[in-house]
């Protein structure tokens, strides 16, 4: 159903307001009202959520908004997706609004988490379903979570050269299990360079949270292309 631009703009304004004050109930009401007015979940996602989140992501790339703003946006989007959009899609027998499923964590031996949190939130606000495993995550735990969540992408953060071998362990374990093509494995963090990621056999690498979103979108497009 086509809604006038003014209605979409008004909904975007309400969503921005809900994010600003972390009004989960207000955001969930907004999503319900939108579907009741005839918008499909996908139309609501593309016409309301996506433009607002894109603007927040762009502002973060210019450091005009910060991690707490991303966190609030992430909470709000998760509430709307979990409580309204996903159930509506399931009821209609349709496919998900998510861009893809990502399991993310800081590699074993490393306890840094802010960079990883930024990437997780940027992916989340850009429509990915993200499972954050935290820091110093053992290789086995990463593999278990990826299988459990049926992840498309395993995203690993490493701020230390001494954690990089554990990133390679994930690839080796997937190879050994015959699952290398099931998951796309990407990494980021200060010592992760394009040269290192190519030599290690990663599917992608990003220098920061903004790049990470573009890279994951590209990988998902490639995967969908292959699947089609």
């Amino acid at each position, binding site marked *: 159903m086509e809604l006038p631009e003014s209605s979409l703009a008004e909904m975007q304004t309400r969503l921005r307001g809900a994010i600003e004050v972390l009004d989960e109930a207000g955001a969930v009401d907004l999503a319900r009202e939108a579907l009741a007015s005839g918008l499909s979940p996908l139309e609501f996602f593309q016409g309301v959520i996506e433009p607002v989140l894109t603007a927040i992501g762009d502002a973060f790339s210019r450091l005009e908004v*910060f991690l707490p703003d991303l966190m609030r946006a992430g909470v709000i989007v998760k509430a709307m997706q979990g409580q309204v959009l996903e159930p509506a899609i399931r009821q209609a027998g349709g496919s998900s609004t998510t861009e893809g499923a990502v399991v993310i964590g800081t590699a074993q*031996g*490393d306890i*840094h988490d802010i*960079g990883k*949190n930024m990437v997780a939130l940027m992916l989340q606000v850009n429509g990915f379903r993200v499972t954050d495993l935290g820091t110093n995550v053992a290789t086995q735990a990463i593999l278990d979570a990826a299988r459990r969540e049926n992840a498309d992408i395993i995203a690993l953060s490493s701020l230390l050269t001494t*954690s990089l071998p554990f990133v390679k362990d994930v690839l080796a374990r997937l190879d050994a299990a015959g699952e290398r093509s099931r998951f796309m494995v990407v990494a980021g963090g200060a*010592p992760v360079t394009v040269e290192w990621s190519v030599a290690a056999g990663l599917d992608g690498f990003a220098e920061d949270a903004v790049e990470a979103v573009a890279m994951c979108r590209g990988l998902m497009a490639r995967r969908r292309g292959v699947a089609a």
Partner: protein
Amino acid sequence: MRNTTRLLDVLDRAETGPIVEELQWDMQLVPNAVMSLLAQHNIKMPAVGDAIVTTDDALADRLFDAGLALAEQLGAYCVSTSRRIQFTREEIRAALAVAPVEVTIGEGNDRATERKRCVEDCRPPFIKGGGVGTPLPEDLYLAVTQSYAQEPLVDAVINCTLSHVYGRELRSRTPWEVLAAWHEVEMSKAACQRAGRPGLALGCVENAVSEIGELSGTSHGGFSTQDWHHIAMISEFKTDYMALSKLAHLVRTGSVIHAFYNTIYGGSCGGRDGMALAIVSGCILLQMLYMTNTHSVSPAHPFYDNDTTPEILQAISLAQQSLARNSRLMTDVVITPVGGPGTKTLLYECAAMAITAAASGATGLIGPRSAAGVNVAHVSGLEARFTAEVARAASGISRADADGIVRRLVELYKPDLDKRPKGQPFGEVYDVVTVKPRPAWLETYEQVKGELRQMGLPLA
């Protein structure tokens, strides 16, 4: 004052404090407390275009009050136990009242004393030269470390890490970490001996990502209690049993403790104002948790990994003034530029931070961690010499004069920040046998010194 009673208090509270989920700490408690205290204490920094080295004493004093309040309200978070380690205002005031205002590190003729400085202090900052954890191949470790140790203006060395050990990849918290710690002991001590400064204090154990590196490296025949030993507080305001195990070992061995906290610009504490508040509160909490001799900060830019953007320089300036005016804490600044050896960018960035820190009352300067510390062997002793010379020249100049020079420097390197010019590795800017800078690198160094003199910096 450091003692077992305070250590046991910290360990007890890590096991008895209120339980909080880490997500709640990161997403609610920290950002909410920071935002609320910034508003309550009217912390609003000037536009970066107006001042990088700030001159508002009242703002600096309000920032300290807010920092005290944040340390009291939040405390620290122990990731290993999911509990908050909290301190009362009285406990914080009592600890700050007896915090050391000087520390002597190193041994024999090479002992050096770091002393607290005040804003616009004429005494130069203490210089801890080195690559601050930058990875080095084994065959270069000795020469690179010697390149810092042989610099007369370097008061102590801060070690690099190893990219490999016995030709093998290093892995955190494995036997390889133990072996790397011992390589660091052997090679950094040998480098100081080769430089003729065998008692120079070493910043260590840089290869100790976990507690096992520290416990093995600071044992019989290893690093001395008079070297300066590191413990980190994880961003934001977090610790864990790895750090607390290092603490227990260092307290019981009577070692000099240097703790650091690197808040993230744009992270849970927000922008410039929140970053300045986090620095002040973070240093207070480092003292409360770790009973430190010295503290350091190096806020990280989320996209460039450096701390020389004008916003971060400004937050460091205000926070250092706040701590210098209102506390006994000895607080160093780690220089983390994007530029690497051989580039003018590196020298402009080092100069901007050295001048900012010297005029703002920082106790010492650490580094530089050239090329953001992430490019193998992209460090050299010449940039530490340069930093020390600039810091000396800037000691005693007014904040207003410092601001004028810093802003001109920032204009010179700001366009290069997103290009991250990593420069050349050590072997291309130094002769690795004679351990002398090559002519091209020396010429660049002399050129930039000339430019600084033209800007009005009284460089010798």
